């Protein structure tokens, strides 16, 4: 499949453990490759999804392994949309400032990098709260025509 007009849809549900990050990356990689992204862009998408899921495991579920992470992927009209949903604690992404590495280094802070990376790697990153108290982050990457 290497056409921008075809429709692609896939979904996976995984438990909230870091054990599953390798599986999540494999699922993302095979989807991005099937759609026709280059190796370089596929690598960026894989890392962004890893960061989003890592944040959910750490912050939404606070390392409790029993939470569910729903990852759905859709490709239509050259737009690859990855929606990642959880039922954990809500967090306000607007309260997390963009990191300044030099300040981070001084303060020995190591968090917050994931969200910064996601914004750098993807074309769009949007957080929202959806019905039933679920949190959702939507990542978008456009396939160059």
């Amino acid at each position, binding site marked *: 499949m290497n056409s921008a007009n075809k429709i692609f849809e896939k979904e996976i549900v995984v438990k909230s453990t*870091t054990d599953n990050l*390798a599986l999540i990356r494999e699922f993302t990689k095979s989807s991005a490759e099937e759609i026709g992204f280059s190796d370089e862009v596929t*690598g960026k998408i894989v890392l962004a999804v*890893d*960061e989003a899921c890592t944040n959910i495991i750490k912050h939404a579920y606070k390392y409790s392994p029993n939470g569910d992470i729903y990852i759905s992927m859709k490709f239509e009209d050259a737009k690859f949309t990855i929606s990642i949903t959880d039922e954990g604690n809500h967090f306000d992404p607007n309260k997390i400032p963009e990191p300044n590495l030099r300040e981070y*280094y*001084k303060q020995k802070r190591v968090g917050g990098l*994931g969200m910064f990376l996601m914004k*750098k790697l993807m074309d769009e990153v949007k957080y929202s709260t959806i019905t039933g108290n679920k949190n959702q982050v939507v990542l978008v990457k456009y396939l160059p025509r």
Partner: protein
Amino acid sequence: MADFNVNLRGVGSVSVIDVKGYLDAHTAPDLENVFNKLLDQKQFKVVVNFNDLKYISSAGLGVFMAYVETMRENQGDIKFSNMKENVYNIFDLLGFPILYEFYKDENEAIHKFIP
């Protein structure tokens, strides 16, 4: 499931950490354990050889940020070597080249500690 290996060896007064495979939130604690061991042994001069590292996420980057200051306060440092382009690009995206030294070759990095 994630495939990651970390190995520690001494080259003179310098500690070399070889990282291999996938460094993510699941495997980063393995690397932290090695850094804690180095602190216990008061070994502050560290070179990380990335030759066999295929993947890194911010959880892995965070480990280097968490330990570098302590190393520097004790006349040491964490220097990087043999990094593949795809891994370097992630460090670059976060501005690491301003704060860390990157070398093509492990020996070059080691010799910076032993002038």
